[in-house]
């Protein structure tokens, strides 16, 4: 029998593939995020208009997706492998397919479907066009050409690939539940994360203190604004990320109405737009100064 291809080996092999394509191997951000896009290695760097190729695992938290460890395919925390290539290489789609082959999918034996998916992250003022990539019907990746971030048009167009690592590993191992996924040869994903799923599902849906979270949201928003006023882009952006996560928990908790929801999204987006604008301003000032000293 073929040796099981473990979750950890998938992470290593896929990272290596993109490293060979010239990506810098980065690490996850140190705050809760809903997607690798929030990591400054993506959100801030795509504003640069400079070549930037990067690959990292991101631990993504989606409070609403928790199912108390009862649904084999839905969980409130998962790993993404985030790849940014800026500018997008012309052969990127082929690279992508080759990366799937590099971890063991023979394209002749599977169906890879590029399903139209206009991606947008409303809290980041970011959007792009691309696809959800389905492997045998299972969404395993978002493939996006960014057009805007922080409300600003991008010049050098980056391509973003966000691989859903658990799902890819499940297909490779042929298991029907994420909890049975072999992390290494002795531990399963369930061994590592089951309790986490159960407890955080409870937290997100019933235990989280909404009042406390609303007040945190307000404070982080005020803090971000204050920091932006002092020209501190990255610390301010850090507070923005926190607002975004708090909003996600509140949404799962089910205490915000439809119209309130739209307003909170707009508030986070305003912060993200502020960060982006400030960052752009800073780099153009730096460029000016460089020109001056040359």
């Amino acid at each position, binding site marked *: 029998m073929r040796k099981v291809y473990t979750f950890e080996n998938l992470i290593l092999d896929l990272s290596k593939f993109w490293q060979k394509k010239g990506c810098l191997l980065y690490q996850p951000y140190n705050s809760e995020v809903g997607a690798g896009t929030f990591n400054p290695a993506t959100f801030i760097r795509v504003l640069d208009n400079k070549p930037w190729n990067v690959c990292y695992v991101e631990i993504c938290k989606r409070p609403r997706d928790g199912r108390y460890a009862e*649904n*084999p395919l839905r969980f409130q925390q998962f790993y993404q492998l985030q790849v940014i290539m800026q500018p997008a290489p012309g052969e990127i789609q082929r690279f992508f397919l080759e990366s799937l082959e590099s971890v063991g999918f023979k*394209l*002749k034996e*599977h*169906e890879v*479907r590029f399903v*139209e998916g206009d991606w947008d992250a409303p809290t980041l003022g970011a959007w792009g066009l691309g696809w959800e990539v389905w492997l045998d019907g299972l969404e395993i990746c978002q493939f996006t*050409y960014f057009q805007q971030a922080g409300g600003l048009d991008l010049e050098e167009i980056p391509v973003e690939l966000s691989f859903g690592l658990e799902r890819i590993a499940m297909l490779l191992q042929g298991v029907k539940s994420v909890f049975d996924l072999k992390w290494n040869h002795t531990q399963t994903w369930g061994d590592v994360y089951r309790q986490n799923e159960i407890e955080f599902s409870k937290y997100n849906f019933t235990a989280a203190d909404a009042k406390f979270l609303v007040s945190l949201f307000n404070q982080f928003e005020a803090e971000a604004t204050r920091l932006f006023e002092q020209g501190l882009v990255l610390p301010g952006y850090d507070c923005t990320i926190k607002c975004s996560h708090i909003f996600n928990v509140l949404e799962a908790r089910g205490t915000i109405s439809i119209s309130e929801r739209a307003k909170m999204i707009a508030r986070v987006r305003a912060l993200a737009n502020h960060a982006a604008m400030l960052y752009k301003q800073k780099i153009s000032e730096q460029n000016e100064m460089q020109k001056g000293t040359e």
Partner: protein
Amino acid sequence: MIDFLLEIGFEEFPPSFLKKSANELSDRIVDLLMKQRIFHRSVRVIYTPRRMGVLILGLTRKQKPQIIEIQGPPKKLAFNENDQPTEMLQGFLKANDLTQAQITIKKIKKGEYVCGKKEVAGVNTEDILYKEVPKILETMEFPKTMIWTKGGTKFPRPIRWILALLDRRPLKFKFAGVRADRHSRPNQHFSFKPIRLEKPREYINFLRHGGVVVDPNERRKLIVKRMKKAIEKTAGKALYTKEMIEEINCTTEYPEAVVVEFDEKYLELPEEVLLTVLKAQGDLIWLKPTNKFVCIFSAKKKALQNVKKGYMLVVGSKLYDALFYFQNDLKQGMDSMVEQTRRMMWLKGLGSLYDKAARLRDFSDFFEQVPDLDIGTLKRAASLCKADLLSGMIREKDFTSLQGIMGGYYARARGEDEAVVAAIKEHYLPVFAGDAMPSTREGVVLSICDKIDNIVGAFLSGNRPSGSSDPLAVRRNGYAAVSLIDANSLDISFFDAVKALLKLYNKDIEQGILFEFINERSTRFLLDKKYRYDEINAVLAYWRGDIVDARMRCAALKQMRGKTEFTKLVIGQKRVRNILKGQKKTGDVKVELLEKPAEKTLYQKGYAIAEKLEPMVEQQNYSEALRLLLEMRTDIDKFFDDVMVMCDDIPLRNNRLALVSYINDLFLRYADLSQIVIEGEKN
């Protein structure tokens, strides 16, 4: 005769406008050939998710030669008295590369002129295509585009190759940073190796070997054929529409089909839920009533087992979620959902969803007079209709589109009357233009109540539409409400409904802007019913917000339009309007001050007509009303011919103005005819 093949290769194109774009490209190339006098025998449109183009067979190598005529100098100046060519003629011949044999004398309006005729050889087809095809590509229009390189061309998705082959020669033009050549690409599941073509006629077969059926018509047939083959031995009826097949056609290069199963326990789910899951998962086709569906996929046949396993897993997981929500919702029950609506704000400052439902219930009273309406059923449905927004199912974004429908199921589980269930189920209809209408009377009225409430709520909470922004989609709500009232011939004034509702809100708002909005929506509706702007303006100028009535008035107007009598009447009304412009109301007509016969006649006529007109208007017999008004036409004309309204005698003048105003008011009982545009009026 030569052949031409053009293939634009891109990363997966949005299926919703692939067919339309491919047809546009083909039409424009055919158009180019016609204009350039290049003959061709046949055209085949090509599209798959990864390419679009045309295969044109039997083209001429060159444009058809053309005989052109060039006008020269007048005969008098071209030849001297001895009929010898003058210097002027020789200059003309030289300048246009003509010999004396190629000219004739032609008589035109201005006199006799020299006319040079010569045959211009056709330009090579190759040169024309090389030059013009990139221009066509550049000017194509799409609903949504992107860029993929800095400052690059806009297109729906990145262009990665272009194949342009005229017989054996590639046309190496450049577009979107790509140099056209003789290479196509296969289905990526088969190979990455480009396919080199020597000539266009190899295309269809070579690509088929590469796992691509390039002809959409052939592919469409293949989809149905493969599906039928796959379900040969399976029970159940395949539920699919033409639109679904075309959508599948736009997402596949090489269709294969496989039957996939799901756990039988999911058959417990409402049919709408099952279909929603299957549709979202890539147009999967349900074999009703079994626990099986067909999946059309676009890969090698070898992938069949993996595809089957994959879809079983994904659909299973989605159905698992759906059943989880459904059972939980049933367990918590509708009463608990209703209770929770108390804590869910609807719009800022306008209370909770519970308040909204209570308001809809009270608003129902306004519709009491609607025939065949069970007010009790309506009120019960109104009280329950927003509860499902608090259900687990509807809160999940995959199933939000089932709002109302799920409410119906939950109401039935609560033991509600089937009429209540139906009204709840239907009360969001019509969701989009051309969508189904509610089938029950209570469903219709509840839908109208809800939509009017959405509109008024939006205006009260600072969310009214302006320009391209319409945050709460009240324009769609407005149009739907008007359509519902009209389609069900309800004798309801939209204005009065809004006033009644505002009372329930107990809030102040400038009603003018709301009425303006209703007028605008009604105008849009009537325009779609093929009435003209001016007809609609005439009718809506003094209406009471009753769309059915407005439509009848428009119909009468449309019927009468174009008759000479009518045109004269309108001209008369325009004179009336002009005279009354800026005049204050002058009170009633004083009979003793009517001086001239024409004045007297008009007044008597008007008086007689008024008596007959009123019942006609009340019975909404507008063609008769209009016919009555027409009877005054000659008297009005005579009045204006014989009587000077703006005379110096003030009491006389005022009395005449009062008469004109009296007649005008009679017209306004029907419509403001002065708004009708008469052809040639502007001249």
